[in-house]
């Protein structure tokens, strides 16, 4: 099944399976594995190419796996079939033809444990699914420029192994999130905010992110290539990040129109509320003079 088709039964996944344990106060659960081929591969078109792991990770009650190699795919599948919660097993169909070393016999990969796919000192690239081999290829290319990238393979989107990401960030101090899903309310923003909350002081540059362009997957190969994250884009983003430059994405679909303030007048100083107080600048300072002359509102860092 293609991951896109999951929405044909989305209600059963997100409203029924995901909520059953909670709604029954732990008495029931839905041990079901939804296995789907996800991600873009050779112009499969808008209904056969999507990576929707952020949508499912958004919903409490679902486990979301996006493996990147045959061993993890098998190990996560075996864990999913032993688990008692609903699992979305989103297998990148771009990797179906890949081969790799797989442990013989019993082999279980736990949920919520990322894999250090490559060690490096200069930046951390966080990826999942078919972005992992691309990130590794980019890392090899960067290595020839003396940039050593650490690559973290998330393996599961929920649970999200933030501890491994932060550990890596403490070594490299730069973070690039590479994800095949779209940026809006997505994995890049989620991980960047996790860094704000857990390891902000470790950053030597803002967290960067690369996602598929915010369009449905076009059919024409040349168009499809233009919207996907590829190795050259990862290499360029990593180089820029080292230089302190972070791409500003354009997925917000901003309109350029100014905010509608007609229905929200500025708060008045109500008698029942304490008036808003601003600290006054010290007397004799330049900002004090500006404040006195009322030429502009006082700012703690006065303009030069």
């Amino acid at each position: 099944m293609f991951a896109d088709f999951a929405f044909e039964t989305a209600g059963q996944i997100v409203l029924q399976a995901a909520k059953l344990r909670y709604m029954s106060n732990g008495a029931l659960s839905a041990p079901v594995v939804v296995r789907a081929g996800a991600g873009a591969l050779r112009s499969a078109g808008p209904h056969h190419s999507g990576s929707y792991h952020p949508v499912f990770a958004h919903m409490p009650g679902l486990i979301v796996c996006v493996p990147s190699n045959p061993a993890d795919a098998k190990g996560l599948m075996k864990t999913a079939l032993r688990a008692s919660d609903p699992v979305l097993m989103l297998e990148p169909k771009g990797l179906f033809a890949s081969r790799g070393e797989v442990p013989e016999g019993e082999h279980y990969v736990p949920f919520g444990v990322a894999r250090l796919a490559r060690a490096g000192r200069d930046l951390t690239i966080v990826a999942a699914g078919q972005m992992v081999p691309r990130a590794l290829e980019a890392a090899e290319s960067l290595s020839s420029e003396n940039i050593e990238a650490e690559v973290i393979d998330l393996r599961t989107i929920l649970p999200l192994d933030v501890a491994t990401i932060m550990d890596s960030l403490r070594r490299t101090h730069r973070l690039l999130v590479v994800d095949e899903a779209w940026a809006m309310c997505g994995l890049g923003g989620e991980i960047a905010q996790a860094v704000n909350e857990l390891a902000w002081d470790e950053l030597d540059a803002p967290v960067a992110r690369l996602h598929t362009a915010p369009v449905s997957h076009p059919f024409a190969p040349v168009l499809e290539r233009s919207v996907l994250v590829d190795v050259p884009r990862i290499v360029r983003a990593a180089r820029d990040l080292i230089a302190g430059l972070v791409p500003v994405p354009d997925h917000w679909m901003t309109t350029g129109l100014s905010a509608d303030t007609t229905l929200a007048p500025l708060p008045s100083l109500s008698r029942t509320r304490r008036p808003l107080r601003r600290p006054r600048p010290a007397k004799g300072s330049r900002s004090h003079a500006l404040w006195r002359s009322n030429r502009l509102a006082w700012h703690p860092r006065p303009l030069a």
Partner: protein
Amino acid sequence: MHLYDRVAGLFGTNGIVGAGIGHAVGIGLAQRIQGLDGIGVAFFGDGATNHGAFHESLNLAAVLRAPAVFVCENNLYATATPLSQVTLNPDIASKAKSYGMPGLAVDGNDVLAVWQAMGEAAERARSGGGPTLIEARTYRTVGHHEGDPVTGTYRTQAEVDEWLQRDPIDLFRRRLLSEFGTATPEDIAAIEARVEAVVADALAFARAAPEPDPATARRHVLADPLNPPPALDRRSPGSMRVQGWLEAVRDGIAEEMRANSAILYFGEGIGERGAASPTPRVFGPSSEASVLLIPRSPSKASPLRLLAPRPRERAACPT
């Protein structure tokens, strides 16, 4: 709504119209694969029969001969929407024919007629005869929800009065007393007093129950611990071999299916066609003849449970 009681076998009074119909199919199949004789029963209204879930569930239940019974309480209105406005075939029982299963329309206000129909359907489900659709034709003499006007908007007083004459409890009470003579007025009064006491007790219990502790609000989202025990056993892997992705995943699924006879595998492109799925060959000695793509009865002998319907295995449509 939103009630679950595992002990009572109540799998949920679903908040989503039609969403529970498929659950009856799954519950029935789960019983069968575990060698139990339980069946899945779904109750729903006439409004749900125009929902895709109704048609998908009936079709799958029929083709898999699921031990399930579908009970439509047709009370003529989906909240305030008359059935006649949303379908050109208001004969709901007849829809069973589309899926090759028996469909019975019964007087939903006749307790014995419903009991008899349900008994037959449950027996058919248990004995491997497959699912049944029962349409119980009835009426809702109260509002759909608190504050819903009983009449004056979508129904007339005359219509409600007519149905009140046929109240199922009143009818049954009269039959027990006069037609069958199996109960005395004292018996009936005792039953009614007992029921009222049960309701009063439940109400008193609910009112006296303390509010839940907010600290419990985050329980039961996922299993705790979240990982199953084998996944936490961090043994170093033994020997390795090079495998393709689909082959590796297929082996993993096959291993788990051998270890757990209650795993069911559904899907398109599985079975013989699907390179990604366990096929009869994966199980070595299992001959194809023992592989049940459409199990018709509990088959503990078969190690493989692929539920992809194939044309030549399709059951003849019962009428």
